[in-house]
């Protein structure tokens, strides 16, 4: 008995005890589901029975609906990444170099939306962008003689809502990433540029941006990955069924087919396509910028 206790706390066994929680959950909740989703993607599944149908599910995916889901997802990812990199860089530079008074409160206010869930953000945005003429955004538009919009009914304004919601929640977080990056730029670089008589656009392009590159890579990676698996920003506006599928994303498609319609095979195939997209992006990133850009963090 005593011997087994000693063995249990020996340096040989301890590491396996420490890492066991990960190994167990990895096998049960990752490895097994991965294998099972690959198998399911080749099956037609109805309650109680599963039949192999070859590539049938993947063939079904080549239709207008899935294409719409992919294109919505890509458009959303493009805009959210673009804005969530440029706007926070601009803000971080201004807050860091230009703002002296109320620096901390301003930073905190810009960060605050990050603690609000997307769901509550959606509740708020639905009210602000309500369709009545008297709704907040429409009443502002009317001051510029722009007719009131039915925001959630059109493809362009629907996309705008989703992108705005993501931008609202994440700008502050990304700004703090960039501010951390700015701390690492030695002041001497700016001073010697001053001596050379460089103006601020020159300093921004030749000192600030290149120094921020690792942080930019990191932020782009997490934003692309978050964009490709976007679901909530759409669900909070349309609860899974938007007019003409204007809010349908890849994950929304997986949810609808797999959970709402119970078509686990088709949903699995869509999931694997999503996996491929994310892997391709990750590999490109890995190849050009090193391990996730994380070692630089």
């Amino acid at each position, binding site marked *: 008995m005593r011997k087994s206790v000693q063995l249990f*706390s020996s*340096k040989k066994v301890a590491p396996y005890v420490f890492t066991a929680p*990960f190994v167990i959950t990895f096998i049960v909740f990752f490895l097994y589901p991965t294998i099972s*989703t690959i198998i399911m993607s080749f099956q037609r599944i109805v309650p109680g029975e599963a039949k192999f149908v070859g590539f049938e599910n993947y063939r079904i995916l080549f239709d207008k609906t899935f294409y719409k889901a992919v294109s919505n997802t890509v458009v959303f990812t493009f805009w959210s990444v673009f804005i969530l990199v440029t706007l926070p860089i601009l803000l971080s530079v201004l807050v860091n170099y*230009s703002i002296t008074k109320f620096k901390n409160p301003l930073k905190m*206010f810009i960060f605050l939306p990050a603690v609000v869930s997307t769901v509550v953000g959606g*509740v708020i945005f639905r009210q602000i962008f309500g369709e009545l003429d008297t709704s907040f955004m429409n009443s502002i538009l009317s001051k510029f003689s722009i007719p009131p919009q039915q925001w959630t009914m059109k493809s362009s304004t629907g996309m705008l809502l989703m992108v705005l919601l993501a931008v609202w929640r994440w700008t502050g977080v990304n700004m703090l990433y960039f501010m951390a990056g700015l701390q690492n730029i030695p002041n001497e670089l700016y001073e010697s540029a001053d001596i050379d008589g460089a103006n601020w656009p020159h300093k921004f392009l030749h000192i600030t941006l290149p120094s921020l590159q690792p942080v930019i890579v990191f932020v782009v990676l997490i934003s692309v990955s978050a964009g490709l698996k976007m679901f909530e920003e759409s669900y909070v506006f349309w609860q899974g069924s938007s007019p003409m599928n204007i809010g349908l994303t890849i994950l929304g498609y997986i949810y609808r087919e797999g959970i709402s319609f119970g078509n686990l095979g088709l949903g699995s195939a869509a*999931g694997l396509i999503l996996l491929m997209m994310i892997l391709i992006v990750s590999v490109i990133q890995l190849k050009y910028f090193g391990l996730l850009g994380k070692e630089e963090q």
Partner: protein
Amino acid sequence: MGRTVARFFSYLFVISAAIIAIFPIFALILASFKPMTELLQYGLNLKLQPDKLTLDNYISIFTGGGNYLLWYKNSLIVLLIATPISLLLSSMVGYGIAIYQFKGRNLIFLLVILILVIPIEILLLPLYRLISRMKLMNTYAGLILPFLVSPFAVFFFRQYVVGIPDSLVDAARIDGCTEYRIFFQIMSPVMLPAYGAMAVLLAMNNWNSFIWPLIVMQSNARFTLPVGIVSLNSPYSTNYKLMISGSALTVIPIIIIFFFFQKYFIAGLTSGSIKG
């Protein structure tokens, strides 16, 4: 002169951004104290008529709030069970990978990175099938178990522990501490800042998490807050009173906690927006 103008526009831009950031939160909290007739007509705005402010919407949570209080309870239970266990297990794994040289270590670390890169969302359907076969649908266990060990937290703890000098562990071993006592009594206190950051990140993820609770908790009484709040917005009858005051009531506590623990929030939420 040019500098002053530049500074003025910097302030203008940053202050506008700050106002746009907090306006929606402020408008929500303000609306939760307004009579519903006004909200139905104008939506959220900043109009303030002090004599019309009312607690009516909050009272309705207790009188006609349906399952709202149950959702609150469910969310709190998940938060209070999942966060500490998650912290303990994830820190153990990260610590194990960082401290020991053992067979399989590199493989385990590689798998942690792999799960970090591959979004768990693509496994929702097989996980759904697994959980329903385990008869865990509509249970806290089904909600919590698949995400109990957070790969991101493991990675974070591993990085943190690697930065702590080995001499601490070596000295403890010479003093005759067992491996587990070294972890719990010597190293855990040293890892406190990492625990703080990850506690905030994991707690926020638990409190706000949406798609998995949406799938697992299918009966109304089992909903968590985010799932419940979304369900209020039905095309047939939207309970605006509850939606607004209920939403405000999920945000206000977090904002209060945020102002007390800013440092940990920032450390946690900027440690990586990757979901844990």
